């Protein structure tokens, strides 16, 4: 069943202001137990923190048709959880802050993220061009969050 929201699961309903919760539309609730919300779990058997920040310097040479692992975060949740990763290009352009996958047009060079049942992997996926300047030896920052919700949904 695609629909998650269960309007009748009224265990907890939090509205806003003085309006009676029985008069609210689902969009108006600040919390309703009939929905599911994205949270970053703690204390659920994870090996690494499920949210974080780190810096990275790109290789001095980036070979053609090669991937480079930037960081592997072990979540150990046993399913593929929702996540988001953002990249900041400290050297390339100040104050850029972009979600992954992030690429440079017409270069074949991408920063990407992928997840399976145990790890989130952040990596460079380079296409047919080799690089010894431009994108090499550059400083980047990354922020990531891994959520409790499964990408594949609830059976």
């Amino acid at each position, binding site marked *: 069943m695609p629909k998650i929201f269960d309007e009748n699961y009224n265990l907890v309903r939090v509205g806003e202001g003085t309006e009676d919760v029985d008069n609210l539309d689902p969009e108006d609730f600040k*919390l309703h137990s009939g*929905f*599911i919300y994205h949270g*970053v779990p703690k204390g*659920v*058997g994870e090996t690494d923190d499920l949210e974080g*920040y780190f810096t990275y310097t790109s290789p001095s040479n980036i070979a053609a048709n090669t991937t480079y692992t930037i960081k592997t975060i072990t979540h150990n949740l046993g399913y593929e959880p929702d996540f988001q990763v953002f990249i*900041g290009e400290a050297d390339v352009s100040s104050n850029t802050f972009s979600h992954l996958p992030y690429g440079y047009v017409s270069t074949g060079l991408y920063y990407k993220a992928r997840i399976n049942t145990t790890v989130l992997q952040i990596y460079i996926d380079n296409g047919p061009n080799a690089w010894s300047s431009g994108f090499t030896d550059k400083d980047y920052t990354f922020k990531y969050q891994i959520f409790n919700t499964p990408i594949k*949904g*609830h059976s």
Partner: protein
Amino acid sequence: MIGDNTPKILTARAGYSVDNANDRELSFNSEWPLLPIEAEGTFEVDNTLSAPETIYNHGLGYPPVFKVFYEYGGYLYPTPDSDFGIGITCSVDSNNLYWRDVWFSGTLDLYWKIYRRSIETNQDLDPYDLTAATTQSGEQGKVIIAMPNKDVDDNNPDEIVFNSNWRQLIIDSSKYALADTSDPGYYTLTINHNLGYRPMYWCYYKDSNNEWRQMSSLDVYRATVTTTSIVWKISVGTWGGGAPTLALILYKSTINSA
């Protein structure tokens, strides 16, 4: 603001107390919206499809916020991924979620979520206390809500609706508007957030069918984010069309002060 004598419900993240928590340490504030999942599902893409294909009839009466991943080689990847050929593939209108990529010829499983919130929402909440979080320790009470017929003590995070110990994906602000054209090189959409850190965000644009799609993330389509504002910028030359209608959702996602 906490302590402003406005009635509200607060919960704090693990290790913090609502008695003295600042905004970064709270996991819930009844003045802040969360992002409720309305529906989720899977959709197999193959070369027999002729776009548009309706993936799901949500019937909400507005274009909802949505997110799509694809599976390949044992991993799940976020879309849009123009490098792989899964570009801006899906769209929503006030009735449906669609598959819109007529060029993709492979076979893949997509996994999607629709949220109970319109992309077309302008919301700008009050400024928050920006005092840096401090580490505390110790046991505390907490609020945990499990899905129907599930047990909060089973420690299965996928079955948890809400856990006050966890950082939640809290919406700070959102905006949709026709892109500004005052910069001749870029179409832009700006939100002044004044959060004091660079927030995570999601971005959408409206296509020629009046459907909303997720924006790709490229050096020619990207955001300039500071501690006070976000400016989504699209290279006019690369975009090729007229000024698009854009939408941004910002999250209170401080992981550190960067």
